[in-house]
């Protein structure tokens, strides 16, 4: 009895204190270690990119090899087209699947779909590119913006699905009950009350999915394929910003390397800008408290 009290009051031994200190130091060091590449990547993007971004970059198409100047206007527009097609595919299907999982998918079937969405989320993007290739490119016999959009659209579905489900589940039960109690049909209640309440969260999910596929390159290599010229035809090979960055980065020309950095800077501003905007606008809403 007496010895037990004495162990309790004895100060923590030196060895344990040192180990505690070491662990704290190791954890803090790993944070610093992660910040190094983050700072280095953003630093270099700005340092190498900012000088190469000019008005021509946004207004002109690429110049042929050997000539300096030119820009990536066609790639920016091409990315917009491909992402537009992707959103048309991924957003409605994703929201619908999310509604199903949140409102009806309680049982085992819901769990299976949920699991499949998570699996689909983890399928390498290049494999999804292969599928879009055999679905669209092989049938059409040529590369196209449409094929690229299909690939990216498939990639958007699981992200939008899980985000929608999560947001709908945050809507309190009472809101649904109130709507139904007013005599509204269930589909109306779901669409114009439940979904409406969760709108900002769902939009966050869509933006995150969008940001994720906006930088995708691998599935576009053999679907949209890229193009040095203007193309607004959905049926033809189309340029995309990440593709252009890739092609320029592995080229042997200094001017193209400069362009690659400029493209990367523009791309990261678009992506990080949208993610940050969404985070900021929702940080005072649904997310607070949850994190």
């Amino acid at each position, binding site marked *: 009895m007496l010895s037990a009290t004495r162990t309790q009051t004895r100060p923590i031994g030196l060895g344990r204190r040192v180990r505690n200190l070491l662990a704290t130091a190791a954890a803090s060091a790993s944070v610093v270690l992660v910040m190094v590449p983050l700072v280095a990547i953003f630093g270099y993007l700005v340092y190498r990119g900012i000088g190469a971004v000019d008005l021509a970059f946004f207004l002109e198409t690429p110049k042929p090899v050997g000539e300096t100047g030119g820009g990536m206007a066609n790639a920016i527009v091409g990315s917009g087209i491909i992402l537009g097609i992707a959103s048309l595919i991924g957003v409605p299907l994703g929201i619908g699947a999310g509604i199903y999982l949140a409102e009806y998918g309680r049982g085992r079937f819901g769990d299976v779909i949920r699991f499949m969405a998570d699996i689909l989320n983890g399928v390498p993007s290049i494999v*999804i590119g292969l599928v879009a290739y055999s679905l669209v490119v092989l049938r059409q016999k040529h590369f196209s913006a449409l094929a690229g959009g299909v690939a990216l659209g498939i990639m958007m579905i699981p*992200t939008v699905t899980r985000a929608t489900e*999560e947001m709908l589940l945050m809507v309190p039960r009472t809101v649904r009950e109130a709507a139904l109690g007013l005599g509204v049909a269930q589909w109306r209640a779901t669409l114009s009350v439940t979904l409406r309440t969760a709108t900002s969260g769902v939009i966050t999910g869509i933006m995150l999915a969008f940001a994720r596929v906006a930088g995708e390159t691998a599935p576009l290599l053999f679907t949209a394929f890229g193009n040095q010229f203007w193309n607004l035809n959905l049926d033809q090979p189309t340029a995309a910003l990440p593709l252009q960055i890739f092609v320029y980065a592995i080229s042997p020309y200094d001017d193209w390397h400069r362009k690659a950095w400029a493209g990367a800077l523009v791309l990261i501003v678009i992506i990080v800008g949208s993610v940050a905007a969404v985070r900021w606008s929702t940080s005072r809403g649904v997310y607070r408290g949850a994190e």
Partner: protein
Amino acid sequence: MSDSLAGMPPVLHGSTPEPTTRPAPATRAQRLVRLRQGTLSRLADRLFRYAMLGCALSVAGVLGLIVYELVVNSRLSMHEFGWSFFTREVWDPVMGEFGALSFIYGTVVSSLLALALAVPVAVGVAVFVTEMCPRPLRGPLAFLSELLAAIPSVIYGLWGIFVLAPLLREHVQPWLAKYLGWTGLFEGPPYGIGMLAAVVILAIMIVPIVSSLTREVLATVPRAQREGVLALGATRWEMIRMGVLRNARAGIVGAIILGLGRALGETMAVTMVIGNRPEISKSLFAPGYTMASVLANEFTEATEDLYLSALIEIGLGLFVVTIIVNGLARLLVWSVTRGTPARSHA
């Protein structure tokens, strides 16, 4: 509700309750709802439900479609080479000889080494953010690691070519060759570009994924667990080790495996820095090749049916492996975080 409106004290009911008056208002309300809804509306409800079910089934449909297309389009190569496809090192498109072993080797080795580098750091970050860091720092730190996850892989590749590879070539590789060259892992000319660069890039890319999931798992460990261990007189580290990490073990393993899944499928950044030569070499300085990068590089060049089929079979192999790895990881993470709302980002 009807009780309070009637204002009758319940004692008065005694042994003679009036069963007809009490449920009546409820029935009337229900009848009203039913009247307003009508058959048309109930049909619309059913249609809506089926439409949403259709959307949900599209997830399963897409997965099925992936399997179908990959299997159908790789039949030629499967027929030609059988299982030996995965054990042969030769890759000679001109002679029509295809084997995937060097790509499998590159994929597995680069991913596992990247994981070895990334996991301690990622878990360290997660522990720091959830257990040690002052509250006001938490949000910004989580946000910064999310930023790292939001950088497109083509930009990692660009940075890898122009910043990381020269750095490795001029400073890191000579040092490694001098002091660790005897291991045989760091031999040969320091190109910068090669397996080592791919490993480093992959490690940087998977840290945010592993650490954000680990954070999520750590957050599900009940407070009482921590308080209990602390109350027994543990230091903070002992509390984290015994009260938190031990309880979250399964979930952390899940997060790590999920990181592995990402590393296995990563394409652009690896393609840009790994050197793209189908060889198996012990040295990390040597160029390598992965399953994903051979697809990225050679798919549009594949003119013959057998070549194309062999590439698609590699895609099928990659798909099957990532499905297994991801499935396992999800099950582990689910087993820990079940009951708390799922997070879709990963």
